[in-house]
């Protein structure tokens, strides 16, 4: 059989395969160069960026839970200027598209960030994080209220011609309502899920383990919730959906595609096995070969319910 077609397209933006690395779990790509062939990935998503450098939260910032982990990094990042100066040049050395994940404290900051990112040629698309549970101002409010989400996405949309992916929070009663708000604001694609808000306690100290008290739950533990939400959203909207949450294997990634995802993002799994994203891309291709499927796009949303 000939090599199956692995490429997918999101808002006119083409990837060699549907495997992306999730924001905050793959650094700026460079860190993993020794473990993964970066050219084997569909796209790399940066750590969440903001206008000014951010210190993030005090430590401890991470803790393992059963089948998952909590993080409260608090969006520590170098800021847009340092990003342009220190990180972007590396992106010119690879052909894999880089997507800038970003957030702001106010709708105006989101717009300003979008404008600045719009002018960076190394950035192929932007992912708007309206769902980070770890920042006091902004973040979660935009991600749990459809009206605020609409407002933010609308401003971002007007500020950039690059493809706009909006990343949704799972901490909501109705994820479909949130998705519709973003579609109305002319998002090009949706990615979901971000982390679920959780907490861990140190019994002996009688204190929360995380300095921030609560953190975001990620990893295989959340996969069933992510799969459910991706399925609900993909059926409800007509823009591409990117599936995220607990993906560890090619099989997991393919399940998200059956549920309606056009692409997937690998997060926590990168920590366990730095080569996961590449392994998954290869595994998905092998699955197509084994099952005589010519094009991965044939799988999208084909779950029989």
């Amino acid at each position, binding site marked *: 059989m000939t090599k199956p077609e692995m490429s997918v397209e999101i808002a006119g933006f083409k990837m060699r395969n549907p495997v992306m690395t999730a924001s*905050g*779990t*793959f*650094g700026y790509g460079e*860190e*993993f160069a*020794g*473990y993964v062939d970066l050219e084997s990935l569909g796209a790399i998503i940066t*750590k969440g960026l903001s206008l000014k*450098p*951010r*210190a*993030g939260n005090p*430590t*401890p*910032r*991470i*803790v*393992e*839970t*059963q*089948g*998952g*982990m909590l*993080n409260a*990094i608090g969006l*520590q990042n170098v800021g847009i200027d340092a990003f342009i100066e220190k990180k972007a040049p590396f992106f010119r050395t690879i052909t894999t598209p880089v997507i800038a994940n970003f957030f702001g404290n106010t709708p105006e900051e989101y717009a300003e960030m979008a404008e600045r990112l719009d002018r960076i040629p190394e950035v192929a698309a932007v992912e708007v994080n309206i769902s980070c549970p770890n920042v006091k101002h902004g973040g979660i409010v935009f991600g749990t209220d459809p009206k605020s989400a609409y407002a933010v996405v609308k401003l971002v949309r007007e500020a950039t011609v690059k493809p706009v992916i909006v990343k949704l929070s799972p901490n909501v009663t109705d994820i479909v309502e949130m998705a519709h708000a973003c579609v109305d604001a002319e998002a090009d694609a949706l990615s979901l899920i971000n982390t679920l808000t959780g907490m861990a306690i140190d019994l002996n100290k009688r204190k929360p383990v995380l300095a921030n008290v609560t953190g975001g739950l990620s*990893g*295989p533990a959340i996969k069933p919730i992510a799969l459910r939400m991706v399925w609900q959203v993909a059926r409800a909207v007509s823009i591409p959906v990117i599936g995220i949450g607990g993906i*560890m294997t090619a099989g997991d990634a393919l399940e998200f595609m059956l549920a309606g995802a056009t692409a997937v993002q690998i997060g*926590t799994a*990168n*920590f*366990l*096995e*730095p*080569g996961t994203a590449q392994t998954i891309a290869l595994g998905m291709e092998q699955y197509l070969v084994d099952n005589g499927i010519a094009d991965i796009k044939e799988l999208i949303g084909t779950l029989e319910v």
Partner: protein
Amino acid sequence: MQFKTMVISNAEVSPGYFRMRLTAPQEFAQAKPGQFVMVRVRDAVDPLLRRPFGIFDLGTFESEYPGAWPQIYFEILYRVVGKGTAMLSTLHHGDHLDILGPLGTGFTPAGPDTETILVGGGVGLAPLYYLAKEVVKSGRIRLFVGGKTQEDILCITEFERLGVETYVATDDGTLGASGLVTEVMERHLKGDVPSKAIFACGPMPMLKAVAEIARREAIPCQVSLEAYMACGMGACLGCVVKGRDHGEHTPDYRCVCKDGPVFDFQELQWV
């Protein structure tokens, strides 16, 4: 580097402390004292994350079969504190593990005319043995080691065999001096003129005390830190500590995994 390893041995050297010898590929011989490895404890998601351990020893294993290639091995010295280490402690010769490493920065050994002062608290001793082995040819080494009780004082014989002068302190006085290791060290270093460099690893309060002594006595000092880690390669930003210039509006966080675990004490904020 990522590789599969085989457990050669895994022995309890003191109640709750184990020493595990593992095979490694040839390139691993380049590992520097102070570097660490991330161990995948099981081929399952419980535990989920890898566990970090310092390199306690590194060497070449002469095979019993004539003509066989010599086999690189390394050792970790670990304390059973939770789920991951408890699982590690049940492994036997012939079991397999997956390793990332060597990771992080290592110690920068002192110059030839400088005396090496090692300070270890409990299992914090672990990375100091490999360091001692590497620098023992070039000069005097003294080791100050502390623990709660005698059972927390590990592998002294090994250090002494290398020719390291060893001073012990325990909180309860069951072995060596009674009191804090830093007190013992301070007594010994007082009025001691030749140039020295301190290499310390252990719990935070001990490291703080060591840093304070180093500052006061103007002795160069490198400390090896611990932190909760997810990735071990500078990507998750989970393991950060405050760098010297850190402030509310001037973030200066350093990754223990990548910028460390070994830091010049002057690079860090100690308050």
